[in-house]
């Protein structure tokens, strides 16, 4: 397993797309901070309208903005979808998956190694986003004070967000393993991260069922916990939903990869 991880991590750090997707994500965070600052400074919109858009203009400090890192989880999941699709499918498009599968490793270990690498990418993107957002808002507004209560809640949010994006990565890895073709995998994964939340919102609006579907989709619940003072029970639901997705898609992925012939 260590050998597989070592090889996968080497490939990861040699991929330009890993750095490009990360750079886009971070640049977008900085642009968003600058845009927010401009919007507030120019008073282009009235304060109450800005508040209704989710800006807490009374406290725009970096400390207070930490939890909002994941408010725009669409972009985050979009970039994850693109990178994971490229990372997994290159092994198939180049045929290099044959080199791994013919060396006597069990298939589930090979799959787990790729999944772990994707989870690592999610963790790197999350940590980088938090740091850049903190620095961007700190330098543009003020850094503010992080109380111990805020830190506890923030760490809880971070843990939950990590689990959410691990779950999303599990789906992306599964889809990519199924598709094998980078183009198809990107199309499906991007569609998943962009449109499922929207479709579920529409379903919630028009469905007569007493179920809020958005509460069970990863991109939606990621945005749901992107602020402090989260309602009781939400984090538990988020953790359970994420864990369920991880277990389900790991199982699907293992059984798919275990039984398939490598035909590249």
């Amino acid at each position: 397993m260590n050998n597989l991880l070592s090889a996968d991590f080497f490939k990861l750090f040699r991929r330009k797309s890993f750095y490009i997707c990360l750079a886009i994500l971070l640049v977008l965070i900085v642009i968003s901070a600058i845009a927010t600052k401009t919007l507030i400074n120019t008073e282009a919109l009235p304060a109450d309208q800005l508040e209704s858009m989710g800006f807490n203009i009374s406290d725009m400090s970096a400390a207070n903005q930490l939890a909002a890192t994941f408010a725009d989880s669409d972009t985050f999941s979009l970039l994850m979808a693109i990178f994971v699709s490229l990372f997994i499918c290159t092994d198939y498009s180049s045929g290099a998956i044959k080199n791994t599968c013919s060396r006597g490793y069990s298939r589930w270990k090979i799959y787990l190694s790729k999944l772990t690498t994707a989870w690592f990418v999610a963790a790197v993107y999350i940590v980088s986003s938090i740091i850049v957002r903190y620095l961007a808002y700190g330098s543009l507004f003020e850094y503010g004070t992080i109380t111990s209560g805020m830190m506890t809640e923030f760490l809880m949010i971070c843990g939950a967000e990590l689990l959410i994006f691990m779950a999303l990565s599990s789906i992306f890895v599964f889809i990519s393993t199924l598709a094998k073709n980078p183009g198809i995998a990107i199309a499906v994964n991007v569609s998943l991260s962009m449109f499922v939340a929207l479709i579920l919102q529409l379903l919630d609006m028009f469905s007569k069922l007493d179920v809020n579907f958005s509460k069970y989709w990863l991109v939606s619940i990621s945005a749901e916990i992107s602020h402090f003072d989260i309602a009781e029970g939400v984090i538990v639901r988020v953790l359970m939903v994420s864990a369920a997705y991880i277990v389900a898609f790991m199982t699907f992925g293992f059984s798919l990869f275990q039984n398939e012939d490598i035909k590249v």
Partner: protein
Amino acid sequence: MEYVLKTTQLSKLFSGVPAVNRANMNVKRGDIYGFIGRNGAGKTTMLRMVVGLASPTSGEMELFGSKDLNTQRARFGSIIEAPALYPFMTAKDNMEVQRRLIGNPQKDEIKQLLKTVGLDDTGNKKVRNFSLGMKQRLSIALALLGKPDVLILDEPTNGLDPMGIMEIRELVTKLNRENGITFIISSHILGELSKMATNYGIINKGILVEEFSSEQLEERCKKCILIKTPKCPEVTVILDEIAAPGSYEVVDGNTIRLYQYMDNPSYVNQEITRRGVYVDAISVEGQDLEGYFMDLMGGIDRE
């Protein structure tokens, strides 16, 4: 004699149609095993099962006498179909991925192998800019990392120019002779295989029809005077007089092969008839390896 590969009734079916049908393949340690068959005969499917890229529908397989296939597969290096390389990496980086994959702590081996295959001066050139021959040689270097006991090369000379083909052949022969690596090489270019193979397996329409050594092949392709006669004992007495000892063999009750006087069969005929023995037919037989294989394949197809 240790077998590195032994299959028993190995089959692979695609939608019920056999791509490999009850194949019994035997490869001994130290062999250069030429695996011959037409396009679509089942060569690649067979090799993919051996290295674990495809699972057999039925049958059994032993690697180094063991049924613990995954453990033994670590002793194999392989190139199945096209070279499997990361195009966005350099030759050295591709080697590094493989080195990490097999857990080989010796970094020096990369430099050494790149030198062996003549790619030590490619520097930062990305694999996407390599020629097919360079990719093929890099694939061989990848497969050689970790000093495997067996190397499986599926159509290794596909798309190579004559110089490239010769280089691969020399490399295979050298590695077999100097490092004792067993090779399983599939190809449909028979002339090329015959220059290096020590053993052969012929597959046709998924059926492994025959296995034989290069000596046996040479024997079968040897030129001779074929004498068809109902009077074999009388003819052998005459041959004992006119031909060197051991220069003929009685194939069956009606056929004798004589490996002398190929340039003068009329003399043999004259000597036999002069002693009052008559033959049904006398002719010079024999063919090159390619002709032999084509006949064999044709024969199989007709059956």
